[in-house]
C-alpha cells in the first residue's frame, strides 16, 4: 500500500495538469527505509512528449547525488499518461528499475477528473496497490489493528 499525504497528491496532479498534453514526471523522496514520501521533486521531461517521458541524464545524476547526501531514496516515481488510463505501459515496465519504489501514474485524459493509481513493478511484473491518502503521517495507520481498545 502507498500511504501518501494529500498535499503531495495535489502537487503531482497539478504538475500533470500543467504539462498536459505532454507527460509530466518526477519523484517524491523520503528517508531510506521509511517508505514515507516526503520531498516533492518535479523533474523536466527531457523527451517533452505526449507519449514518452525521460529524466535528463544530468538531472538524474544530480537528483541521486542530492538524495544520497540526505539519506533519501525515491519512494515514489510518478508520471502522467495524457491520453490513456493510469496503468503502466509496456515501455514503463521495461524501464522500471527501482524495485522498492511506488510507481504512481496519473491520467489527465479527462479535463475535469483524474485517475491516480500506484503500482509495484518488479522483474517486469506489475502489481497494483491501494493508495491511502492522509492529511499527516503522524496519525496514519501504520500496522495491523490488533491492539484492542480499552475504555
Amino acid at each position, binding site marked *: 500500500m502507498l500511504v501518501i499525504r494529500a498535499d503531495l497528491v495535489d502537487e503531482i496532479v497539478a504538475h500533470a495538469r500543467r504539462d498536459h498534453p505532454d507527460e509530466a*514526471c518526477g*519523484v517524491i523522496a523520503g528517508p531510506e527505509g521509511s517508505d514515507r514520501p516526503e520531498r516533492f521533486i518535479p*523533474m523536466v521531461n527531457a*523527451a517533452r512528449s505526449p*507519449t*514518452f*517521458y*525521460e*529524466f535528463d*541524464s*544530468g538531472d*538524474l*545524476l544530480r537528483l*541521486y547525488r542530492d538524495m544520497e547526501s540526505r539519506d533519501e*531514496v525515491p519512494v515514489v*516515481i510518478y*508520471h502522467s499518461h495524457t491520453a490513456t488510463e493510469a496503468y*503502466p*505501459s*509496456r*515501455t*514503463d515496465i*521495461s*524501464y*522500471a*528499475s*527501482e*524495485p*522498492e519504489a511506488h510507481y504512481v501514474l496519473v491520467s489527465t485524459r479527462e479535463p475535469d477528473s483524474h485517475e491516480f493509481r500506484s503500482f509495484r513493478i518488479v522483474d517486469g511484473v506489475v502489481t497494483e496497490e491501494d493508495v491511502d491518502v492522509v492529511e499527516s503521517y503522524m496519525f496514519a495507520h501504520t500496522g495491523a489493528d490488533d491492539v484492542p481498545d480499552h475504555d
Partner: protein
Amino acid sequence: MAVTVSIPTILRTHTGGEKSVEAKGSTVGEVIDDLESRHSGIAGRLITDGSLHRFVNIYVDDEDIRFAGGLQAPVGENSNVTILPAVAGG
C-alpha cells in the same frame, strides 16, 4: 589504480548489497570487465551486444559516457564511476 564504482539498488544483488565497490581499468569497458570478474552477472545487466544497455546510464566523474566515448570513455586514476538506471517510460 582503484576506481570507485557506485552501484544502483537494482544491481546490489550482484555486490552483496554494497552501494559502492572498487574496480580497476583505464576505460569504462575495462572497469566493467573487472567488475564482472568479481561480481558475476553484472556485465550482462549493463551491456547488450557490445554496447551500453539503453536503460542504463554510466557516468565518469559526473559525465555521461554517451557523450564521452561510450565504453571506451577513459577512466582516470581515482575516478568515480556511477551507474544509474534511466528513469523513463511511455
